Structure formats: structure tokens, C-alpha cells
């Protein structure tokens, strides 16, 4: 196994970190793509989930969406979008695919969170004369917050993975280091790219883990 030293030397070569195809630039693209798409999908999914959860409607839709989404290959959706007229706009196929796949975990978890709010608490709030909007913002949404955050965490980690696949259809991000490595038949570069991607994904997961662990009780939820 003399791959490991080769991977190490690839990772420690300064030239591989700078420039258009360098790790630095690819990392920046990956970060921008991940967080921009996370914001867009949260803006779409959370209002729908809070509304449906408050009304107690569309539960089957919200819960099954995640299961249906799982059967659709991300790679296929990326290529399909690339071949439509949307594909002519560079980043669009990637952004649309990423948002589409980030919505189900956000929607499902936020919905389940809203539905699992203790109904006694909801009745008490109604009894105090709260309006629907007050009920959502002061009672249901805060109590559902831990699960909403779980949804955000799943979506974020998944976005990192999906953004990697974008490289297969010519998008930017860290996946490009891997695909370039395959094109060059350079195993060290492929593995080095994979290590960077894996570390990035794990750091994202770890950041959420720490945030949830050290957050105040109302963010963490009761110990589940």
C-alpha cells in the first residue's frame, strides 16, 4: 500500500490548495452551495410544515415525501435537469436538485415535531384565549424546535453529499477534485478528494451534534 504516502503528499502540496481547481476554491464553492440551498429549502419547507402541522392536515404527504424521495436517484435528477433547458444556466440544475432533495427531511421532521406537541399544552393555550398565530409562534413552534433542528441537520449533511455529486454533471464543489482525479487516472488525487469531502461532511455532522448537545434545554428537547 503505497497509496497513503501519495495521498498525503497530494494533500500537503501547496499547489493543490490554490487556484481555480484548488481545494480552497472548491471548498468555498461547496460551502456556498450547501448553505445557499439549505436557506432556500428551509424557506420553502418550514412554512409549509408549520402550517400543515398546525392544521393537522397533509400528514400522509409530509411523512411519505421522504420515503418517495429516497427512491429517486440524485444522480438521475441532476442529469435530467442538465438536459432540460434549465441546464444551460450553469448552477441551476445543481441548485434545483439540491433544494428538491433537502425539502423532504426538513418538511417531515418539522411536521412530526408540530404534531408531537403535547395536546394538553395546546388545549391549555387555546383555553387561555390564544389565537391560531399566537399558538403557532409561542407554543407549537418552540416545542417543535428540537425536531425542526434535527431536520435541518439531516438536510445539511445530505446537502454536502448531494453537492459532491454535482461534480458528475459539471457543477462546482469538492466533488470536482474526485472527478478530476478519475479523469487523470490519479488514485492519490481521487482518495485525497474523498478524504477532504468525508472530513467536510463529518465536520458538518459534528458541528450540529455539538450545537444540539450544548444548546439550552428547549433547543435540545427532552432526552429522547
Amino acid at each position, binding site marked *: 500500500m503505497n497509496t497513503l504516502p501519495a495521498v498525503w503528499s497530494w494533500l500537503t502540496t501547496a499547489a493543490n490548495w490554490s487556484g481555480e481547481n484548488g481545494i480552497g476554491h472548491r471548498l468555498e464553492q461547496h460551502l456556498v452551495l450547501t448553505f445557499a440551498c439549505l436557506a432556500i429549502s428551509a424557506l420553502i419547507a418550514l412554512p409549509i410544515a408549520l402550517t400543515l402541522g398546525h392544521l393537522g392536515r397533509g400528514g400522509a404527504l409530509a*411523512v411519505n415525501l421522504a420515503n418517495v424521495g*429516497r*427512491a429517486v*436517484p440524485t*444522480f438521475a435528477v441532476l442529469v435530467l435537469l442538465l438536459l432540460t433547458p434549465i441546464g444551460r444556466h450553469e448552477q441551476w440544475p445543481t441548485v434545483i436538485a439540491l433544494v428538491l432533495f433537502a425539502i423532504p427531511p426538513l418538511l417531515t421532521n418539522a411536521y412530526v415535531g408540530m404534531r408531537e406537541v403535547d395536546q394538553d399544552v395546546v388545549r391549555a393555550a387555546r383555553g387561555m384565549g390564544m389565537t391560531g398565530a399566537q399558538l403557532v409562534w409561542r407554543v407549537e413552534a418552540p416545542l417543535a424546535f428540537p425536531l425542526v433542528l434535527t431536520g435541518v441537520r439531516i438536510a445539511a449533511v445530505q446537502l454536502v453529499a448531494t453537492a459532491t455529486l454535482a461534480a458528475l454533471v459539471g457543477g462546482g464543489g469538492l466533488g470536482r477534485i474526485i472527478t478530476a482525479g478519475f479523469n487523470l487516472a490519479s488514485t492519490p488525487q481521487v482518495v485525497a478528494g474523498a478524504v477532504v469531502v468525508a472530513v467536510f461532511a463529518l465536520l458538518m455532522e459534528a458541528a450540529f451534534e455539538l450545537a444540539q448537545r450544548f444548546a439550552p434545554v428547549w433547543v435540545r428537547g427532552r432526552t429522547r
Partner: protein
Amino acid sequence: MTAPPDDCLARNDWICGDYLSTRRQILLDAVGQHVQLTVVSVALGLVIALPLALLARRRRWTIGPVLGITTVIYTIPSLAMFSLLLPVYGLSATLVVVGLALYSLTLLVRNILAGLDGVPAEAKEAARGMGYGPMRQLLTVELPLAVPAAMAGLRIATVSAVALTTVGAIVGYGGLGNLIYAGMNAFFKAQVLTASVLCVLIAVVFDVLLLAAERLLTPWRRVVRRPRSARGRRLLTASGRRA
């Protein structure tokens, strides 16, 4: 001078009957490879996951590390996973199978453990009271009662594996993913759409088959239809999909 043929292949339509008839063998081969990669990897994952889950249950201190490692594995994106295995397996079908098996493994271990933990204490006490030994209790009481949770994991693992197999195209073993990859480079719309739809169909067929298997394995659940518990739902929602 003959005019170019005006059929759906020449027009590069999304939906094209001629594509289906002229590329039949290619499609069947790709479906065959896809199904084979999926089934072998999930089966491999199951074979490893069951003893791991049983070990974790017997030696409680191993639960933390087992769940931790499986979470780490599950967090690694598929493209990176296949790439990390490249120095070990080279450009081979084994690489794809091992990568997919690792993902299945993580889902299955967690769900089997959850299923075993969910066995009611009364059921275990009753078995002990009837003089069952630990092995008999495990095989005839605990494992059957863990089937619903384990099958939920197996269904998610299988459906995810079908979708993820497409990424194997990066090493040339992606089943229908190979057709999608080639179709992308050639801008061949009918090929990309047909292969994508077939992928989803395979996933749906597997899901339905596993659901039927679950009902066969748990005849007692057909008699008393209990509403699905919140716990079951949580299992389905808490594990995101892989990409």
C-alpha cells in the same frame, strides 16, 4: 441525397418507443447489473449487521462504539465512499458492492437494535417462565418481534441502495447509472429518462416485495391492526437519505 430519418431517436425526444425496441438488450443488461449489485450489497450488509446487532445487545458497552462508527460511515457521501475504496478494490463491481453494503449495514444495525430493544419485557418474562433458554428465546420470541423494525430498516436500505447504485457509474459499475452517465455525455434524452424511470421502478418493486415478505413473516400483525406507533415513524424520519 436521402433525408435524415425523422424518428424520435433523430429528434432526441425524451420519450421514445424506438429507443426501447432498439436498445432492449442494453437496457435488460443494465437492469440485471443494477439488481445484482443492489441485492448482493444489501444481503452482505444484512449478514454483517445481524451478528453486530446481537453482539451490541449482549455486550451493552459496544452499543456506543457500534452506533458511533455506523453514524460516521453513513455521513460519508457516496462519491467519497467509492473513491476511498478505490485503492483497495480498483475499478471493480466489488468496490460498488462493498460501498453500498457499508451504508446498508449502518441502517440495518440501528433498526435491528431498535427492534430488539422494543420487545416487550412481558414477552421475554413469559418466555422465561415457560422455560425457554436464552437461544430459544432469542430465535422464537425476540427476533420475530423485532422483524417489523428490522424490515423497516431493510426496506429503507434496499430502496437507498437502488438509488445509490447509479453513482457506481464513476467506476463503470453503476447498472442503469452507466446508461445515465453515457446518456449525459451524448446528450441522449431518451436514454437518461428511460434509465431513471427504470431505477425508480426497481426501487418500488423491491419495496413492495419486502412489504409482502414482512406481512408473511409477521402473521400475528395481520389479525390485530394496531395504528403505527410514533416510534416507528421516528425511525423512518430520523435517518435521512444518502446522496
